[in-house]
């Protein structure tokens, strides 16, 4: 049996996927301050859990902002290419994917072949990312994981600042006016959906889109985004690990090519 491993070292968490052409297993850990340490740790965990040794893995592919670690990977690909591969593997008819991660958001259009057709990134500031949600949630003494449930039934209040720093002050102002946390959260999610909607508008989507990255676990945001873009969104199992999955599959493709 041939095995490949994909490792996606992100700004917040590091994801690893073990793949053998049929099934895949994933691990997610927090990146912490050392991306190379996180990469090593996730690799060891995958091996340990599945009773494998490094020698039994034909290829280790790196992606994510930590992919530049010297000597750690046999091959690297950008996270855009990896997410594309992972997305088309899980849903071959997907016409694109939206990945909202800890520090950036990516909207990518896929060709019928599953290859990247075009992409729009927001990675120069925290606006509309997991970080933005985290900062504003903290202001209200909440955890990111609580946001979806709280916002479910609420009417959203307009949030105008997309900058994570300014949005924090705006949220404090709204709280001072006595606006409920639920309405503020609904407003925050709406503002993210609008922003991603504008990015998606540049790519003319027609069909089903994969929604991945840690923020995809937020069900309310999924609904808002789907309405904003006018397309059906599909959140895969383990949405955080799609990049690592893609990396593992790309690695596996390379092993097969060599044979």
């Amino acid at each position: 049996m041939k095995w490949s491993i994909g490792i996606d070292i992100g700004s917040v968490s590091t994801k690893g996927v073990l793949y053998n052409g049929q099934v895949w297993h994933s691990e997610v850990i927090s990146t912490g301050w050392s991306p190379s340490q996180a990469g090593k740790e996730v690799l060891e965990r995958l091996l340990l859990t599945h009773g494998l040794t490094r020698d039994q893995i034909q290829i280790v592919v790196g992606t994510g902002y930590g992919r530049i670690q010297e000597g750690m990977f046999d091959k690297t690909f950008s996270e855009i290419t990896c997410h594309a591969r992972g997305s088309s593997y899980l849903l071959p008819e997907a016409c694109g994917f939206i990945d909202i991660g800890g520090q950036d958001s990516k909207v990518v259009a896929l060709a019928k072949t599953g290859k990247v057709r075009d992409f729009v990134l927001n990675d120069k500031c925290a606006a509309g990312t997991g970080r933005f949600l985290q900062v504003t949630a903290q202001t209200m003494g909440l955890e990111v994981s609580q946001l979806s449930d709280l916002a479910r039934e609420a009417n959203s209040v307009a949030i105008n600042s997309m900058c994570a720093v300014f949005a924090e002050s705006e949220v404090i102002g709204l709280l001072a006016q006595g606006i409920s946390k639920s309405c503020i959260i609904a407003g925050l999610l709406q503002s993210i959906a609008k922003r991603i909607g504008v990015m998606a508008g540049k790519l003319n989507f027609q069909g089903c889109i994969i929604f991945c990255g840690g923020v995809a676990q937020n069900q309310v945001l999924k609904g808002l985004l789907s309405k904003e873009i006018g397309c059906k969104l599909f959140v895969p199992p383990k949405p955080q690990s799609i990049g690592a999955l893609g990396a593992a599959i790309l690695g596996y493709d390379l092993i097969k090519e060599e044979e």
Partner: protein
Amino acid sequence: MRAQTMAYFDQLIPSGMLLAKEAKEQGRNIVGYYCVFSPIELIEAAGAIPVGLCATKQEPIAEAEKVLPRNLCPLVKSSYGFAVSGKCPFFHFSDLVLAETTCDGKKKMYELLAEHKPMIVLDIPNSSNFEDNQEHWIKQVYRAKAYFEKNLGTEITEEKLADVIKIYNEERKLLMELVSLNKQHPTPISGTDLLKVMWGRSFQFKRDEFTAKVKELIAELKDMAARGESASQVSSKRILVTGCPTGVGQEKVMRIIEESGGAIVLQESCSGIKAFVDLVSEEMDPFEALADKYSKTPCSCVSPNKRRLELLSRLVEEYRIDGVVDITLQACHTYNIESYSVKEHLKKKHNLPLLQVETDYSDADSQQIKLRVDAFLEML
């Protein structure tokens, strides 16, 4: 593999500084300029030395922001900062400046810069289809002629100008011959080296020496190609760079493209072939010929700017381009807006993808640019 002759071009700008100093000591006149729209043949024909002015480094921007707004194109800020801080020797040694009304940022900046150096600002029409475009340009050429004659105490005769036009045309042909070596695959010369030659041209005013070195470089590159040596790999994707000027000192994006395995075949922008691809007619009246050539500069400051699309169409076919990277500077409205038209044009007419990279002169966004470039190259 890199041509040894490149060592000369590596030193072009520093040695140009010394030449400028020597020329001043010998009592020669120097006229500085910033833009590809500047009809610099007039300066040469007036017996003065035309020299490019510094505009492409991050360093003097902080100085410029004492006066100029932060949210302004880095090229405009850098030009002003270099000039007023005394860090651009070419500005320092210039007697006059030949400026132009291109983008809003530049023309308002020139109002402030005029406090520091005598200058003529050519009035460049914004509309490419303005009925009186040609006449207007001819008037501007004569206006510049009169200005130089008065301020440099000389006469620009038809004969002198015709001679300079001939020399400059030969140089243009030679530079295009150099660029066209990159029609081969893999490319014999890297994009950053081509930039050094083409950008460096404005700072070297011994025309004979420069052209002799370009000839040497061409010969060396041909030999290298014959031996199978090249600047890129067979697997490298062929990239055309367009957009805002990317001068020496701000090669960030180009370097990332090359380090990520892309082959920059040529630059369409002002720092690339834009000034050299079209010749000045040697058949017409020389003053009118200058007006004719420079009025057709395919810059995003003019509207509509169909010539840029036509030029790109020609280049992507001739140079068998796989993908286009549009480098636009933050707050450069004209190039940023035009990026959409260029992208649509390339997609519809040539089925070619375009990656727009919006950036400034700082290195803060290198990792983000690398991600875009990697994904773009993997996509091709």
